[in-house]
């Protein structure tokens, strides 16, 4: 049994969705993780897209969160005003996925710039809905490719705050981080390695972390390998390997 890094990340994220009722879905790994969870640990999971599509059950793999295939047969399609007002601020989003160009130990995220804001080295996309999602979702799941450039001691720009003082939002803030090396949870607001992926050493994880003294859970465990069932579902979801490679 073999699997790609991406497949492992999708499976690790999906397993965290057990019992979750509603999830704000992003494109790529989050979409695959939610679709996998819906077919395994969270059959009642309702997929909600930033585009206003509620209760979609995608028949094809979307390249964008506004794919017309998401709309057809969905439960409800709303304006962005209603989506952000009633669903997000109204507290109806249990879990939301966010990506990150940089993330720090408190789960704060930068998706705005590398370098100074006024004269950036790299201009990134910006917040989109991420800032309000970070503050209002029940729990935030962060999917990121880990390296000293992405796991940084100090963000160039705080786009979406994590566990800072005073508590900035009404949501629960970052709860899970999944990378190609392991899975993290937050203990007292500090990102803490809880699972290490098969074949990865703790040294490798530390070398890919831009801050000193990475917190490691007392109960650190190895990520259970993807099950054949899980991999089968994933390959059916992305038969051309657009995201799974």
């Amino acid at each position, binding site marked *: 049994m073999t699997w790609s890094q991406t497949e492992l990340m999708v499976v690790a994220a999906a397993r965290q969705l057990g019992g979750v009722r509603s999830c704000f879905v992003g*494109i790529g790994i989050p979409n695959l993780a939610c679709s996998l969870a819906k077919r395994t640990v969270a059959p009642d999971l309702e997929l909600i897209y930033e585009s206003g599509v509620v209760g979609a059950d995608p028949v094809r793999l979307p*390249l964008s969160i506004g794919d*017309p295939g998401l709309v057809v*047969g969905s439960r409800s399609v709303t*304006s962005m005003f209603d989506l952000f007002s009633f669903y997000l601020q109204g507290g109806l989003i249990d879990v939301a996925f966010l990506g990150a160009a940089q993330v720090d130990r408190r789960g*704060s995220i930068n998706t705005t710039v590398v370098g100074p*804001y006024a004269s950036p080295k790299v201009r990134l996309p910006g*917040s989109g809905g991420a800032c309000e999602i970070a503050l209002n979702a029940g729990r935030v799941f962060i999917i990121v490719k880990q390296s000293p450039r992405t796991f940084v001691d100090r963000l160039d720009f705080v786009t979406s705050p994590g566990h800072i003082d005073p508590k900035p*939002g009404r949501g629960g803030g970052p709860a899970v981080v999944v990378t190609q090396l392991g899975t993290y949870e937050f203990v007292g607001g500090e990102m803490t390695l809880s699972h290490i992926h098969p074949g990865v050493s703790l040294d490798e994880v530390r070398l890919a972390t831009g801050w000193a003294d990475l917190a490691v859970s007392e109960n650190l465990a190895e990520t259970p390998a993807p099950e054949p069932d899980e991999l089968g579902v994933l390959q059916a979801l992305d038969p051309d390997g657009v995201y799974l490679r």
Partner: protein
Amino acid sequence: MDSTKLTSLAEAIDLLVPDGSTVAIEGFTHLICFAAGHELIRQEKSDLTLCRLTPDLLADQLAAAGVISGLVFSWLGNPGVGSLHAVRRRIEGVDPRPLRIEEYSHFGMVARYSAGASGLPFFPLRSYAGSDLPRVNPNIVEMQSPYGADPVYVVPPLNPDVAIVHVQRASVEGDAQIWGIPGCQKEVAFASKTVIVVCEEIVDDDIIRSDPNRTLIPGRIVDAVVHVPGGCHPSFAQGYYDRDNEFYLAWDAISRDQDRIESWIDEWVRNTSDHAGYLEKLGAARWAALAPGEGLSRPVNYGEYQ
């Protein structure tokens, strides 16, 4: 019936979009009026400020062609693919010239349009606490609640000079109906001083009035009605044509190189006379591949009351 609003896209843009104006072209992945963007380029409009939550390929083309000098936005990228390289060159390298930016989150932009549409001096939202966005954008202001709860942030109204709003069907009077992803087409139309409705189909008033709940934009606020079938390509119009994902994927390589993007604009925009010419160049086979099947809404009964 007042049909004097019906015009061509070239005429609407010539008459209603002055150089230097603030222009909103919304549509969240859906109903993005690329035809209007191309026409702005053909007419060599300049110094426009583009308001758009997601300045995607449309903004990349307008930035590369020198049409826009400013952006009011919340997310800039090629969705699911990567960067807008022409926009990035202008922001990162000031190449060939700088681009002013004014940056919000998605809901911040929607809230600005909502305040603008509602005659409100500000709109409150639960965002921005702990973010650096208010630090770089003084329009985003913290506000206490008089009822003693935790503070919120507010944003000011946004009232663009012109909104160009793509819809699926409209009457000649401008009553416009949308289905599928509505984005903030309604809010931006009500917020803007001038409204150009671009539609896939002009339909009889009877059709509009058979389902008045579907009318998001009333003719009252519409200044021009333009019929441009296929006007959203490579974006899509639900039920009319699919999103051309290949185009979005291919754009990345075009956009990475300023010469290449300029040749693309020459070939596809400046050297086509209008959107019909652009679609003709795209070719019937490619267009046919984007045709959706049929998935009709079940009717509802409004009744007949004498």
